[in-house]
């Protein structure tokens, strides 16, 4: 038998023994135990070392509010830090490590921090690490110097470096009533709503729904409360319109009555069952919400209140009644309210000795005095605990008389031997979710607590959440809340279950802190003391928000669930103001830590869809290497064996310029612009005219944004009077579509134009080179392709090997070239027919590298130059700006800054040292390799030009137009590439365009 396990009682399964490991030591517990209850049952009281001072810490609570007992769960090489031991259900093989200790929990060298605690007070980091104003460690450099030491000494558990192997999933749910919390109030609310026909979801953060019924020891409907709860739960689970979610923390309340929750599906198992995720994230949209989230007990603040063995009285009630565990053998109790007296009764019944009942109040209730006499031990009304004694475990307490009204201590302190001290400082309703969906919480002077605010969304509260702390009230309020939430009114109150429980007065004495000498902790997780709060005030932090940030009070993983109100009370006293005048900080989501995995769900890794052109398989079979261009996969080169990328694209480029080549251009954005006003619309969105374009002709067009910068370019083909086919760059297809849709819907709804994205409907193959016309003549039927039938920018319709095609003569490469469009389903067929017809002419397929090389040689711009910061003039496209009509961007494009002479302008760059250039390299006037500076602009694209026999590039250079013919340097410190270059015109090759017009 474990030393602290009561002989009987509790809701654990004593026939099932569970084996687990804590800091390498084997332990046993029972099914139904948490790590905290199992370790307490084994007599373990030291759970962790604290955040800043490395002080020994035990377990304070029995639930999600735990600030001290955070542990790291180990699973193979995977570490999950900062899990409250109070929430961790044990299972066979569970392996847990304590945190914040070096080398071990019992002997921690970091505890030396305590000796320096005078300098580690509030704002220590802010003050100390500003650093000197001069010298090598000035300013933040000093912080960077110190950071390594501090990171090692302070902080919570550390995460592992291994990839999380767990699976997570996300669920959407819709219901009429979501009940949050499954204590008596929540259970009855769910039942009432379900009885009214509502679809109900019931979420409970603990493993076993029932809430306080699991540990109150009360009787409901003639049954022990825990059994009544289990029976009610069975009834609810059997209903078609109820879904119960245990181990589910509702952590966020968002607009439209949308709530977020995380279900810990498999954390209580060694390995998840088949198909089971570790966590499941729920997005729940509901008509209304019942908040039955209960209340958190507050500790009292006094010197030594963080010593292991100090525990909340309500938590001790839970340990003894739910888990059959005694937190100590000789127990002292320190309270400012009546609730702790029930704990005393339960512990006495379970076999513990109550050595002292210390109550700050002089005038305690008759019922309280009666219980105190029954449980035995000293009864010290009008007294306070002023210190705890012992090392890493309470061995005694010191008490002194106190005036509860003034807080004044009197008389000599006296020691009492005890191995455990239970504390109650009153109860605070758990209004976190309500705070996210409501106005300001309201202070209740009797309860000395904030009550729920007025709702701004559709929720209704019940039970302790409302400040109604008796089970009887919880049941009646839960019933009413369930009916209200379900929109029903005719529930019968007399059918409610009866409650047999001792009545008690929930109102505490307004005592939050015992001011005696020694470290008294407010925020146990962040090691913030009462003196830190006062120090912050002395240093001028008077707003509660500033105080919180400066002291870091309430900013740890527990978000100050046990420390917010005591901290606020101390702040109020220091300011000399009532608590409600100081105000409380707003509670924000999440209510409790949420695993990032559950937020990501299945959305991790590379989840981008792939866009493949109709000819993709042919490219793969013919040795293409691919680029990702946005979502598209485009051939980069069709390398021969042993060829480098440069050798491949140079070969492909030469083949095109000397003969003929074929490139897949299916990725170009294609938009059908149709309707009687299509021409007029295009005149407004392009800088040049399109309404005058003849049917069967194409034109190069340029689009600006409203602010006058270039948006996109491409050719648009007039297929009919009211029928245009617009092409966009691959990258901007979506953006241009949205731009045009916006204009038609919002700006010019009167225009009769229909837009349809047809990018995926057409396959496109560009055939280029002096022999391209010969290839077409050999395979196209139904039309001629000679210069008369198909002049530059002309369009014809025909067939290739039986497949209908549309051919437009236009050129990106600068060669005689044609774009052959066919239905996407015919793409590969047409492509293969072109390759076959091209065989006598030594046709080659070519990829983006060769395409890019030829466009650089021609000085054509793409997305690298149309980068959202360049104007038409910067890119030498002034000739495209019509003066005959306004267009999008025309009003803004002539602004002073957009026509300035020293803007970045497009130029050509030639490498003078015959070494390759890199995109992104800077252009400078004078080289300074040691201290690179004075950038004039940057290279946007670079290649080896087979036509020029040189390494060349395009660049955007400050005042570049005037610099043509001058020397400069490239400066690329990241790739250590420096060297001389010449700035030239961007038209490297055939500037007259004679080749493509031939």
């Amino acid at each position: 038998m474990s030393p602290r396990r009561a002989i009987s009682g509790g809701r654990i399964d004593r026939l099932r023994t569970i084996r687990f490991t804590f800091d390498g030591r084997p332990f046993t517990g029972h099914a139904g135990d948490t790590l905290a209850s199992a370790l307490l049952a084994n007599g373990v009281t030291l759970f962790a070392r604290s955040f800043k001072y490395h002080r020994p810490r035990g377990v304070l609570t029995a639930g999600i509010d735990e600030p001290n007992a955070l542990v790291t769960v180990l699973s193979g090489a995977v570490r999950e830090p900062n899990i409250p031991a109070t929430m961790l259900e044990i299972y066979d093989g569970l392996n847990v490590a304590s945190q914040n200790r070096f080398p071990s929990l019992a002997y921690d060298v970091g505890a030396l921090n305590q000796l320096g605690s005078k300098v580690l007070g509030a704002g220590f980091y802010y003050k100390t690490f500003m650093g000197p104003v001069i010298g090598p460690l000035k300013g933040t450099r000093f912080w960077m110097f110190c950071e390594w030491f501090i990171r090692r000494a302070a902080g919570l558990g550390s995460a592992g470096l291994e990839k999380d192997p767990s699976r997570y999933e996300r669920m959407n749910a819709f219901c009429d009533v979501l009940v949050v919390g499954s204590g008596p109030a929540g259970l009855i609310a769910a039942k009432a709503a379900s009885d009214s026909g509502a679809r109900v979801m019931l979420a409970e953060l603990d493993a076993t729904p029932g809430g306080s019924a699991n540990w109150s020891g009360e009787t409901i409907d003639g049954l022990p409360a825990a059994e009544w709860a289990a029976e009610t739960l069975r009834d609810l689970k059997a209903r078609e319109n109820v879904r119960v979610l245990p181990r589910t923390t509702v952590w966020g309340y968002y607009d439209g009555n949308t709530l977020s929750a995380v279900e810990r599906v498999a954390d209580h198992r060694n390995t998840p069952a088949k198909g089971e995720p570790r966590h499941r994230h729920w997005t729940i949209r509901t008509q209304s919400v019942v908040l039955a989230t209960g209340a958190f007990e507050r500790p009292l603040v006094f010197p030594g209140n963080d010593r292991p063995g100090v525990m909340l009285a309500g938590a001790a009630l839970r340990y003894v009644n739910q888990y059959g565990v005694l937190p100590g053998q000789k127990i002292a109790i320190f309270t400012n309210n009546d609730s702790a007296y029930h704990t005393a009764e339960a512990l006495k019944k379970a076999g513990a000795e109550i050595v002292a009942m210390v109550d700050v109040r002089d005038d305690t209730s008759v019922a309280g005095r009666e219980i105190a006499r029954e449980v035995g031990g000293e009864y010290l009304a009008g007294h306070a605990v002023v210190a705890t004694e012992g090392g890493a475990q309470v061995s005694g307490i010191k008490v002194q008389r106190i005036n509860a009204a003034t807080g004044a201590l009197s008389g000599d302190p006296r020691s009492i031997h005890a191995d455990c001290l239970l504390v109650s400082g009153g109860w605070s309703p758990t209004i976190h979710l309500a705070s996210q969906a409501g106005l300001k919480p309201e202070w209740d002077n009797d309860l000395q607590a904030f009550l729920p605010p007025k709702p701004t969304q559709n929720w209704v509260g019940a039970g302790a959440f409302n400040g109604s702390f008796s089970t009887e009230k919880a049941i009646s309020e839960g019933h009413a809340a369930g009916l209200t939430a379900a929109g029903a009114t005719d529930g019968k109150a007399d059918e409610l279950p009866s409650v047999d429980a001792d009545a008690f007065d929930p109102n505490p004495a307004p005592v939050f802190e015992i001011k005696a000498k020694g470290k008294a902790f407010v925020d146990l997780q962040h090691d913030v003391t009462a003196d830190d709060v006062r120090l912050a005030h002395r240093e001028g932090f008077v707003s509660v928000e500033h105080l919180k940030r400066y002291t870091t009070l309430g900013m740890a993983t527990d978000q100050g669930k046990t420390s917010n109100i005591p901290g606020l009370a101390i702040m109020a006293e220091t300011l000399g103001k009532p608590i409600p005048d100081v105000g409380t900080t707003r509670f924000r989501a999440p209510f409790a830590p949420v695993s990032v995995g559950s937020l990501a769900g299945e959305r991790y890794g590379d989840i981008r869809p792939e866009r493949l052109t109709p000819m993709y398989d042919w490219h793969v079979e013919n040795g293409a290497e691919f680029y990702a261009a946005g979502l598209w996969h485009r051939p980069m080169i069709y390398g021969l064996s042993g060829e480098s990328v440069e050798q491949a694209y140079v070969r492909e480029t030469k083949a095109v310029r000397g003969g003929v080549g074929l490139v897949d251009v299916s990725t170009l954005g294609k938009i059908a612009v149709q309707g009687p006003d299509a021409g007029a619309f295009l005149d407004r969105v392009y800088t040049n005219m399109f309404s005058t374009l003849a049917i069967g002709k194409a034109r190069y067009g340029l689009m600006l944004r409203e602010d006058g910068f270039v948006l996109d370019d491409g050719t648009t083909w007039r297929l009919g009077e009211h029928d245009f086919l617009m092409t966009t760059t691959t990258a901007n297809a979506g953006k241009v579509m949205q731009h045009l849709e916006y204009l038609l819907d919002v700006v010019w709804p009167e225009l009769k134009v229909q837009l349809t994205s047809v990018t995926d409907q057409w396959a496109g193959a560009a055939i280029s080179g002096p022999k391209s016309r010969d290839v077409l003549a050999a395979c196209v039927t139904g039309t001629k392709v000679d210069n008369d039938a198909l002049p530059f920018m002309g369009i014809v319709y025909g067939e290739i090997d039986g497949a209908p095609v549309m051919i437009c003569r236009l050129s990106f490469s600068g060669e005689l070239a044609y774009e052959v469009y066919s239905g996407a389903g015919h793409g590969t067929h047409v492509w293969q027919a072109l390759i076959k017809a091209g065989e006598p002419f030594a046709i080659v397929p070519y990829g983006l590298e060769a395409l890019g090389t030829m466009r650089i040689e021609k000085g054509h711009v793409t997305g690298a130059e149309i980068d959202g910061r360049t104007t038409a003039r910067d890119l030498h496209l002034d000739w495209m700006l019509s003066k005959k009509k306004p267009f999008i961007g025309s009003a803004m494009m002539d602004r002073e800054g957009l026509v300035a002479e020293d803007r970045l302008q497009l130029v050509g760059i030639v490498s003078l040292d015959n070494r390759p250039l890199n995109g992104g390299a800077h252009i400078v006037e004078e080289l300074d390799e040691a201290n690179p500076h004075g950038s004039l602009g940057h290279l946007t694209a670079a290649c080896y030009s087979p036509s020029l026999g040189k390494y060349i590039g395009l660049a955007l250079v400050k005042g570049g137009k005037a610099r043509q013919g001058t020397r400069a340097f490239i400066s690329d410190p990241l790739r250590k590439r420096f060297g001389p270059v010449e700035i030239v015109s961007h038209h490297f090759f055939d500037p007259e365009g004679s080749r493509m017009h031939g």
Partner: protein
Amino acid sequence: MLITCPYCGPRDVSEYTYQGDGNRTRPDPASTDQEVWNAYVYDRLNPAGEHHEIWQHSGGCRAHLAVTRNTLTHVVSSVSFARDAGHKKSDSRRKTGAKA
């Protein structure tokens, strides 16, 4: 946040793309008044409370919608097609060219 598209019904905000302040009216295209154009291109209302906005149902029917949304609560109080609502601009709009 839900927006009820007149075509498609109530849909999650993730199906929509925010397309900006719906109080703006594009100046006369022939206007050369830089102040007016500057206000149209760069000035946006940013009220705490009801706001007239344009949202595109980009993951659905692709219509642009004129939406009245409370920026504090995300409550959407009216939705209509932008092309129908185009001419009913808010009174709260600043005088064009006035400084914010």
